């Protein structure tokens, strides 16, 4: 018989599907009988899902270009033969 306390201790393993099949079925039995643990589990799963669904931030073009210029300077310092100046994003877009 799984208690709520025990259920919460195993929640992490349950969410990441790292329990044994036996423990998993005991935990699921508890979920079917305990509305509070069911809500916590469901809303925690949704928490993970909404974060995973977010796209990375768009990088402002100016910031991207600043990074490329800095890289070009470092590359040139390390090896003066690298004279090529990298195309900025605007230049790439107009190609």
């Amino acid at each position, binding site marked *: 018989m799984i208690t709520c306390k025990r259920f*919460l201790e195993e*929640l*992490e*393993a349950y*969410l*990441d599907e790292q329990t044994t099949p036996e423990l998993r079925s005991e935990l699921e039995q508890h979920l079917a009988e305990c*509305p*509070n643990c069911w*809500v*916590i589990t*469901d*809303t*925690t799963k*949704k*928490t*993970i*899902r*909404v*974060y*995973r*669904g*977010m*796209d*990375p*931030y*768009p*990088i402002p073009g100016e*910031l*991207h270009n*600043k*990074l*490329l210029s*800095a*890289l*070009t300077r*470092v*590359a040139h310092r*390390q*090896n003066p033969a*690298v004279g*090529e100046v*990298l195309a900025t994003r605007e230049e790439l877009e107009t190609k």
Partner: protein
Amino acid sequence: MASTTSPAGFNETPLVTRARAGDLSAFTQLVEKYEGKIFRLARHITNSQEDAEDVLQETFLKAYEHLGEFQGNSKFYTWIVRIAVNESLMKLRKRKSDRSVSLDEQIDTGEDVIAREIAVWEDNPEDKYSQTELREILDQAVKSLPPIFRSVFVLRDIEELSSEETAEILGLTVPAVKSRLLRARLKLREKLTRYFKRKGDDIFDYL
């Protein structure tokens, strides 16, 4: 070098090989591929636009300068994430108001995070808000986590690294990563409940 496949099945190995041989345009393609993720990570850990911009630049410059030291037995992506995490934590430590940031900080093991808010959520809570509003809500919630939880959560659930990779990058044990991740997830769940709960239907209130 072992062939490594990074997020979304992208095989970074040919680009990394060319970049290591001094091909700057190959390195630039790696920058284009990962800058958004690195910027997001830095933004979350430092909580500052300005610091995140510095971290982004420092990370790729350091990676470029030290490319010769990259062994190729881990993913390039994991390697730059580690640089970005270190740079971000340095920013936090430098900040006067955050003098005590330590990933090894003792965390209380009380049960304070466990479920004060028990309310059913909408089936697709993310659909209740515009992308901009949603981003604001999610970012605010992450921001409220203490740095130790924030770093673990960002690497595991936002950057989607494994517990093992997260442990390696943060210098924690795998069980420590797992227990912090659970607490972070539960804390965020609490924070988000007021935005995502189903309206007019606190069915467990009477319990």
